[in-house]
């Protein structure tokens, strides 16, 4: 687990530097995260998730695309996949920290999972196309938005 904390300090310094300069800090490409008891308790990069935005990310085929594999409790007329379990009521079965780890890197629970790692460390990925190199599938803000939305599904 230690290896995930290597960059955390560096990123904080970068963010702090920007804040001092008075700009709104742009999203860094990657924040490190730590797993404890199969959960990530601290929000990625300290971002605050917004549930409404999270639902949009989850149901967008070019962003979270959660509905490609999961039945989601949203009222829109959509075609859902069934590779993963339905997510209605997920927050009554899992803690927020566990939900965060599921979204960030499901392979902690099942090394052979077909679920993409939405926030795996970019260096762990193989042969990423140029346009996507150096960053995970979703941004820290998008992860936190999705987690915030999933946390409302009780």
């Amino acid at each position, binding site marked *: 687990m230690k290896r995930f904390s290597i960059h955390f300090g560096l990123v904080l310094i970068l963010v702090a530097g920007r804040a001092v300069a008075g700009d709104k800090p742009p999203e860094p490409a990657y924040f490190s995260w730590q797993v404890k008891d199969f959960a990530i308790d601290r929000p990625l990069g300290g971002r605050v998730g917004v549930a409404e935005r999270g639902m949009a990310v989850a149901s967008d*085929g070019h962003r979270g695309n959660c*509905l*490609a*594999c999961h039945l989601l409790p949203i009222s829109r007329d959509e*075609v*859902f*996949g*069934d*590779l993963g379990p339905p997510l209605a009521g997920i927050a009554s079965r899992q803690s927020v920290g566990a939900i965060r780890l599921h979204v960030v890197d499901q392979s902690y629970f099942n090394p*052979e*999972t*077909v679920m*993409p*790692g939405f926030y*795996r460390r970019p260096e*762990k*990925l*193989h*042969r*990423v*196309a*140029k*346009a*996507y190199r150096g*960053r*995970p*599938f979703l941004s820290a803000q998008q992860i936190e938005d999705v987690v915030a939305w999933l946390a409302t599904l009780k």
Partner: protein
Amino acid sequence: MNRYLAFFVLMLLVAPLMAGQARSGYAYLTPEARELQDDDFGNPGLASVDEGQALFYQPGANGKPCAACHGDQGEKLDPERIARYPVYSERLRKPITLREKIRQCRSDKQGGPALDYASPDAVALESFVRRLALGVPVAVDVSGPMAAHYAAGKQLFHTRWGQVDIACHQCHDYHAGKHFRGQILTQGQTNGMPVYRLATGEIAGTHERISQCLTSLRAEPFAIGSPEYIDFEVYMNARGNGLKIETPAIRY
């Protein structure tokens, strides 16, 4: 109670057989798509076969068309042999795919011009030739020096790729028959290659199809005809040994 027990025992016996069994993508098609594939006039993939047939009659630089050696309808080509590709070349010390064999023929027997591996002409000729083996079971021999290529292809099939970070087998070995959005996942078998894709309206051979998959995983595809794709093809064709050739199959 006994009935449940009998069912349980039956499943114990049958499950391992079901798990390891190769199934053609045809098994996952809708009835409408199957009908389209089986239609000798309506199957849109046949356009590629027809193009290939036209090229089969076209003379090479030395004036000889393919048909001069292989017969007007390609009837002198052995369908059983077609079903065994890729085969190992002792001379070149590497596996030769069917498309590569056609390219060699063009360069060595017809005096050129060279056929680009990724060209539509090469895909069309492959479609025409493989169609000659329609219904013949795939039978790739992966013994001897092919074993290493089979192993390399299997390794590639089991590697997580791209920003999405998924390996081929995680969808195509574990989840065939399930839905990814509206699409039914297949085992990713190659017995219908080159296939006509309903999703793109285009014909794709094994290398083109893997490129499309890798691109959707946000990975950098390999080059068409590259050693990596040839190893992929060795593994994937052998993985489907026994499946009948369906070229040009209809797939999503």
